[in-house]
């Protein structure tokens, strides 16, 4: 068996947390249950991975089968990668019946004809997600299995989630293959990036909580409402203001949990406005400035700003339009009119 395959499996197993190794190997299904019983999963991970490699050698594993284990690992831990969202444009025809086999064939054919040395794996999941793993090589070298690109595609949607390896040069080819395989016209990168794949899906598939005015009575949960009858001597001075803030916040963010984003970036190309007597900037040039908001959970922290008293409600539309516009990377230019506000470029 190829030494590189053995090494690849060994390293992949080492990545997996010890408690998960057995279940992941079971999901992989390459080793039989009997073989798995022979492994002692309580010893040091180094030894566990060696045993796994031995058993794989007995079953003569090849690189494509080893790659499946990598997909399984990344499917369970997608948040270790940075994902970007791409949108495809349709030709405007009636929706065809999506044929998975035809998609896979066209995709493989495109890549293999352009670049001989690639390893391509597909895996379908229950939620209609198709995971594609591509390991890139060159006409002269074998594919580098340690820096694969991952693509997640839900059929009949125009969105693709791509986590690329370092080789950005392969990106156009990957995009082309996707467009051809899914019968779309072209593809463009959206300004939306995050480690949380599910949150990106929530945003573009509109699965996040939005507020809609309806007549249907929905249960309203008053979280921090203290009972009025606690002590009649205590009066909440700004009760109406607090209620207004709660109402406005709910109208903007809805009731449920927000998708998880790590940052929002605003590139300002606006003019610096200062007192003319100060003469800070002689030249009438845009003041180049980059504002970045970072947080483990940006949208939840934005939601709690106004109720915590740290910002006015309603928040600036530049912050609240993130999920609506499905982007967290903005360029703000000067608006060519009398309004002093910046203009968000599309």
């Amino acid at each position, binding site marked *: 068996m190829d030494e590189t395959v053995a090494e690849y499996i060994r390293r992949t197993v080492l990545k997996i947390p010890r408690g998960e190794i057995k279940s992941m190997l079971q999901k992989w299904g390459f080793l039989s249950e009997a073989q798995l019983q022979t492994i002692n999963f309580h010893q040091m991970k180094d030894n566990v991975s060696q045993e796994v490699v031995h058993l794989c050698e007995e079953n003569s594993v090849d690189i494509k089968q080893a790659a499946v284990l990598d997909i399984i690992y990344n499917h369970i831990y997608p948040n270790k990668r940075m994902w970007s969202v791409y949108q495809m444009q349709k030709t405007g025809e009636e929706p065809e019946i*999506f044929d998975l086999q035809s998609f896979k064939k066209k995709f493989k054919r495109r890549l293999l004809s352009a670049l001989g040395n690639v390893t391509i794996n597909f895996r379908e999941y229950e939620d209609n997600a198709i995971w594609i793993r591509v390991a890139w090589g060159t006409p002269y070298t074998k594919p580098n299995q340690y820096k694969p690109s991952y693509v997640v595609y839900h059929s*009949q949607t125009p969105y693709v989630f791509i986590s690329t390896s370092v080789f950005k040069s392969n990106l156009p080819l990957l995009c082309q293959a996707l467009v051809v395989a899914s019968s779309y016209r072209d593809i463009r990168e959206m300004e939306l990036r995050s480690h949380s794949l599910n949150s990106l899906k929530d945003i573009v598939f509109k699965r996040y909580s*939005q507020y809609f005015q*309806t007549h*249907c009575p929905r249960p309203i949960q008053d979280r921090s409402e203290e009972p009025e009858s606690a002590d009649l001597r205590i009066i909440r001075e700004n009760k109406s203001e607090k209620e207004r803030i709660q109402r406005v916040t709910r109208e903007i963010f809805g009731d449920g949990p927000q998708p998880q984003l790590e940052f929002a970036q605003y590139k300002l190309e606006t003019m610096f406005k200062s007192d003319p007597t100060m003469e800070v900037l002689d030249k009438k040039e845009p003041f180049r400035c980059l504002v970045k908001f970072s947080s483990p959970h940006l949208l939840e922290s934005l939601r709690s700003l106004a109720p915590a008293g740290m910002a006015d409600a309603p928040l600036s539309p530049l912050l609240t339009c993130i999920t*609506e516009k499905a982007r967290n990377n903005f360029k703000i230019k000067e608006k060519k009119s009398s309004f002093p506000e910046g203009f968000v470029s599309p």
Partner: protein
Amino acid sequence: GVFTHLEKLEAQAHEAGRRQEERQQQEEKLASLKERVEELRMQRDELRAKVDLQHKKQSGKEGIVSDAAEPSAGAVLEWKIRSIKGMLQIFYLTGISGKLTKRGVCFSISTAYEGTYLGSYYLDLLTKPAVRIHRHSLPIFIPLEQISRRYLQTDIRRFLSVLSDHLNAYAGRKYQADQLQEHFSDQLEGSLQRNSLCNLLVFNYKMPSEGKTFPFSARLIYRDLCCSLPTEVIVSCTVKAPESLEETAAAHSELFRHTALHKAFCTFSSAEKKVD
């Protein structure tokens, strides 16, 4: 040393915080239940007052009716509000309802399949200067752009009705597929392959016949997105099987064309029980 001590304190604080949260939640629940009790008591009192009034009128007491027997203006208002809410609830249950907003209308479309209520979807429309969609919660694979291009500007009723058909059909197809997976997984071989719109289903299933089980392969295509029954069904035997099974395959094909998927499987298992 110090660190372990700090860690211990942190853990204690965490634990205390968690317990307090639990307590708070229970108190909230209690408060809302108490409110409900109050509401119901008020309703009961009003109804009692009305009944009394009726009795008094019937027994011919034409005397001065005291204020206590007549429902107060506040109670009447409450009753009116409740009956309007009831009306709105009824409209909501019919499937399409709307509410005027500051800048337009917000529609909610509810889906159901044969008596089971499934999800609701919302559309926030702006009406000035032209009718357009501001926000929505529709799944991305529903061809909203297409439908709105055709009908939104010209015939909003048609737009809503077409959209509702799409959503209800999708919800119906998904429901059938989910039911099949949930209740008949023992008859399915392998996994049920579907796509986002649930308009292409591919699965293998087995039918016990004379003690042996014969695997069938089914491919259901729903070309009409407004319909929850397939337009094309291909059922074939995966192995070379006797003539009788070819007939069964054809029969199944017809059955799937006209009956909901999970109901079709129901008839299989009941037919099998009859044979046994």
